[in-house]
């Protein structure tokens, strides 16, 4: 066992450089060979792209390379990039209408980064002149309300909160009322982390959404699913179930500052048509970026 562990960890050290960086290297120097395709597959899978998506990508790439009789590895790289960007720029349109009162519901599994991401978004909108109010509808996790309140203070926005264990729907209702009376532009609702497999908790989330829908026109205007970039293939199931329950309008990909690549978003975009809207790149308030497919894919190749 020991000998083996050592070997694996050594081989890991050798590949510690960015996987996609290796693709670049590979595509830059080598000819188009079986080895190249295999390494390409390895690199995509190690980025959590998933076997299915990887195989589809590589096959499509091979087809194109054969058809166009491409010999230059550099050209293969460009085609791959374009493929990847195309997947992310999927058909889903952003709605351009800006309602008077925008309600953003933030959901996700436990510990994915919801509350921190909400703080970042609050600052983002506040910096752009919007009046933001946060709703502390995670009434379940210990000190979740305190956590959001601290962020609210740091950003300088109001937080509407009830007692621990209070009905999250009631918090949403009050947040909307406060939004109206205080003339807010953007309301962001924090919800308790929940696994998508828990029936009761997903029902509760649907109810939270219904309360928002009932009390503000066409609300929620955004329902963001916060995914931890470290998550593997399960993220696809998460996206699927949350989409079914509360109609996800976009993904917030948190913790992209680690070494994980978040490659599962390709499958999410491709199979569920959910656009990626934001990325989180640290624990600070400014560690936020609007998602851009070109930059994301380009970043993978660095």
């Amino acid at each position, binding site marked *: *066992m*020991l000998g*083996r*562990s050592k070997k*694996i*960890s050594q*081989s*890991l050290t050798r*590949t*510690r450089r960015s996987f996609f960086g290796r693709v670049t290297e590979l595509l830059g120097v080598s000819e188009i060979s079986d080895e190249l395709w295999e390494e390409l597959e*390895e690199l995509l*899978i*190690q*980025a*959590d792209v*998933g*076997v299915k998506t990887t195989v589809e990508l590589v096959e499509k790439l091979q087809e194109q390379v054969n058809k166009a009789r491409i010999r230059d590895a550099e050209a293969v790289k460009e085609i791959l990039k374009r493929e990847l960007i195309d997947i992310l720029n999927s058909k889903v349109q952003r709605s351009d209408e800006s309602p008077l009162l925008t309600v953003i519901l933030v959901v996700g*599994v*436990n*510990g*994915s*980064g919801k509350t921190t991401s909400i703080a970042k978004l609050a600052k983002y909108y506040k910096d752009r002149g919007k009046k933001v109010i946060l709703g502390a509808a995670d009434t*379940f*996790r*210990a*000190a*979740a309300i*305190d*956590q959001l*309140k*601290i*962020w609210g203070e*740091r950003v300088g926005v109001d937080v509407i909160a009830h007692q621990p264990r209070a009905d999250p729907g009631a918090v949403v209702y009050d947040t909307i009322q406060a939004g109206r009376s205080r003339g807010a532009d953007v309301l962001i609702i924090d919800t308790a982390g929940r*696994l*998508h*497999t*828990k029936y009761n908790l997903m029902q509760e989330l649907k109810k939270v959404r219904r309360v928002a829908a009932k009390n503000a026109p066409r609300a929620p205007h955004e329902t963001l699913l916060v995914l*931890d970039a*470290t*998550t*593997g*293939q*399960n*993220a696809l*199931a998460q996206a699927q179930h949350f989409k079914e329950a509360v109609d996800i309008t976009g993904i917030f990909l948190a*913790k992209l*500052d*680690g*070494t*994980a*690549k978040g490659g*599962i978003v390709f499958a999410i975009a491709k199979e569920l048509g959910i656009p990626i809207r934001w990325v989180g790149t640290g*624990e600070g308030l400014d560690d936020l970026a609007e998602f851009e497919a070109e930059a994301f894919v380009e970043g993978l190749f660095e």
Partner: protein
Amino acid sequence: MFESLSDKLQGVFKKLANRGKLSEGDVDAALREVRLALLEADVNYKVTKDFVARVRERAIGAEVMRSLTPAQQVVKIVNEELITTLGAPAKIDLSGPPPHVVMLVGLQGSGKTTTAAKLALKLRQSGQRPLLVAADTRRPAAITQLEVLGQQLDIPVHSEGTKVPPPVICAHALKRADDAAYSVVILDTAGRLHIDDQLMAELEKIKRKVSPQEVLLVADAMTGQDAVRVADEFNRRVGLTGLILTKVDGDARGGAAISIRAVTGVPIKYLGVGEKLDALEPFYPDRLASRILGMGDVLTLIEKAEAALDQEQALVMGKKLIQGEFDLEDFLRQLREVKKMGPLSQLLEMIPGFSQLKTELTPELTDRQMKMVEAIISSMTVEERRNPRIINASRKRRIAKGSGTTVQDVNMLLAQFRQMQRMMKQLTSGRGRGLLSMFR
């Protein structure tokens, strides 16, 4: 009737022989599926490759069990190998003089704080006096979070606000534990990225200050390919002693456990299975293995086939019993079976009145008794084992001496054996018929 029974048995074994061994083609075809299953379960690419190569080596040329296809046979080997890779579960090490320090480390949001509280509860239930330590001074309200959980459990929490450096807080907590006779100190550290050098150095400093007996990596069951690097780096910096996998109550397959085991070799200590504080479960390698493999139906099939094989063995034994070929060696084997509630004893249970007889025959055998029986039988000659009737007084004395037992012990064993033989006669006459016809 006996003819047909043994005919049947022969047919069975002929089929088995016909099946033969796993060919390279069989193995590779099945391993392609296995590889996909593992990658889909988030087992790291390199770890998967290494694992599949190992299984391949073991599988080629292996016997194919009756009622399994070659592919299923490969899956069976894979499952066994996965179980081995996952390793045996381990408890928290509380050896030596208290206070014992248990340090929880991991990425942001992996479940450290919740797990700290769960562990404290578990340890208190086993008679320890735990002290929780709020060493996460970074995440907003992390201290309050731990304090709330501590209150819910009525377990004290040592906290010093967010201004004191975590290594100092931990050192103070250890001193407090010493003074107030807390037996276990559980450190809830801040989540951090494995590549954050400054924060990793902070963990090293905590470790130097309080010399934790356990450094447990708390990892999310949903973790993807990156698990190897995270685990490798935490292990390199602070030397892990164990793993706790959280959020196992979801539907993530949990392949990260295999990855982490492969790079660190540390045992899995517990699984987190919910947000509630009692949702911490022991880890069973076989359950986690079949979850990771995600081939539940195939595994069930294999189990059934294995049960069938056990029945075959039981039948062989039964046949021997009936034909009076049952000797002391079979007896020894049977005792071992009964001890682990083996197939024959279960078969006997089906016959009215026999379950009682069985307990009379083989009262709870302790390990010591089992050793004694083994010693006695192995001190017999082959002839004596085959035909115990020839064991007279002088032979008994020799056997007792050879096995380091008394003549009384030898007598007792022989009596048990004779009782078993009598029971076999009943099997063949009347009462056992129902049983045997089951196999027609």
